[in-house]
C-alpha cells in the first residue's frame, strides 16, 4: 500500500467518525419525519458518488476513444465498477427509509425507476467487459456504453424535479420551499466528503488491480502460457 493510500485511509476514518457523531449524537431530529430522516445523510452521498463515478467513466471512455491509451480505459472500468456498487447502495437504504417513513418499501415513481434503469445500464457495462475477450474491441465497446449510459445521470437527477412521486421533493435547488438548515447542510457535506474519499480509495485500488491483471495477461502471453 502506498503512502497516499494510507493518508486517505486515515482521512476516511476521521470523516466516518465525524459523520457518525453528527448523525447519531449531534444533529436535532427533523420535524416531520423524526429519527428515520437521518438515513438521508448516507442515501444522498451514495447517489452523489454514483453520479461522480459514472461521469468519470464517461470522461475516461471519451479520452480512451481519442487516444487509445489503455490507462484511460482502466480508469473508466474501475470507476464504473465502484459507481455500480454505490448505486446499489442507493437502492438498499432508500427502501429502509421509505418503509418506516411512509409505510411502503417504495413505489415505481420516476426517481426509483430511473435509478434502477441506470443501475441496469452499468450492470450491462460490467457484463460487457467480462464477456468480450478481445481487449481493444472490449475497450471501445465499453467506452461507447459508458458515454451513452452517462445520459442516465441527468435523467435520474432531474426525475423528481420534472414529475412528482412518492420520493421526497429535492431539498437542494428545488425551488422556493426547498433548502436545509445549516447544521443539516454541514452534515450532508460531511457525508458527501466521507463517501467521496471512499470512492477515491476504491478507485485507486481497483485501477491498480486492473493494471496487475493486464500485466499477468501480458506475461502469460509472452511466456506462451494459457
Amino acid at each position, binding site marked *: 500500500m502506498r503512502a497516499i493510500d494510507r493518508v486517505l485511509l486515515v482521512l476516511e476514518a476521521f470523516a466516518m467518525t465525524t459523520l457518525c457523531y453528527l448523525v447519531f449524537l449531534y444533529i436535532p431530529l427533523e420535524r416531520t419525519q423524526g*429519527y428515520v430522516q437521518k438515513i438521508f445523510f448516507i442515501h444522498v452521498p451514495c447517489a452523489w458518488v454514483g453520479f461522480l463515478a459514472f461521469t468519470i467513466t464517461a470522461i475516461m471512455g471519451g479520452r480512451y476513444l481519442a487516444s487509445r491509451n489503455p490507462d484511460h480505459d482502466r480508469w473508466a472500468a474501475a470507476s464504473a465498477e465502484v459507481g455500480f456498487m454505490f448505486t446499489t447502495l442507493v437502492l438498499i437504504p432508500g427502501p429502509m427509509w421509505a418503509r418506516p417513513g411512509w409505510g411502503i418499501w417504495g413505489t415505481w415513481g420516476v426517481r426509483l425507476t430511473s435509478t434502477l434503469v441506470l443501475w441496469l445500464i452499468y450492470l450491462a457495462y460490467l457484463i460487457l467487459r467480462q464477456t468480450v475477450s478481445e481487449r481493444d474491441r472490449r475497450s471501445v465497446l465499453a467506452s461507447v456504453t459508458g458515454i451513452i449510459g452517462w445520459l442516465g445521470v441527468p435523467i435520474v437527477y432531474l426525475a423528481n424535479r420534472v414529475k412528482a412521486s412518492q420520493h421526497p421533493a429535492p431539498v437542494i435547488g428545488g425551488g422556493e420551499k426547498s433548502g436545509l438548515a445549516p447544521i443539516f447542510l454541514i452534515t450532508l457535506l460531511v457525508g458527501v466528503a466521507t463517501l467521496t474519499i471512499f470512492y477515491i480509495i476504491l478507485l485507486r*485500488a481497483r485501477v491498480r488491480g486492473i493494471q496487475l491483471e493486464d500485466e499477468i495477461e501480458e506475461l502469460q502471453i509472452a511466456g506462451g502460457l494459457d
Partner: protein
Amino acid sequence: MPHNFWWVFSAYSVVWLAVILYLARLFGRQRNCERQVDALKKERGSH
C-alpha cells in the same frame, strides 16, 4: 432507544459493511495479483 433507530442503524451498517468488505476484497486481490506477477517474472527469468 429512539423510535426507528434500528432502521437507521441498519442502513448505515449496510453501507459501511459493503464498502469496507469491497475494499478488503480489492486489496486481497491486489496482493494475489502481485504474487502472481512476481512468480511469472521469476519463471520467465529462469528460462
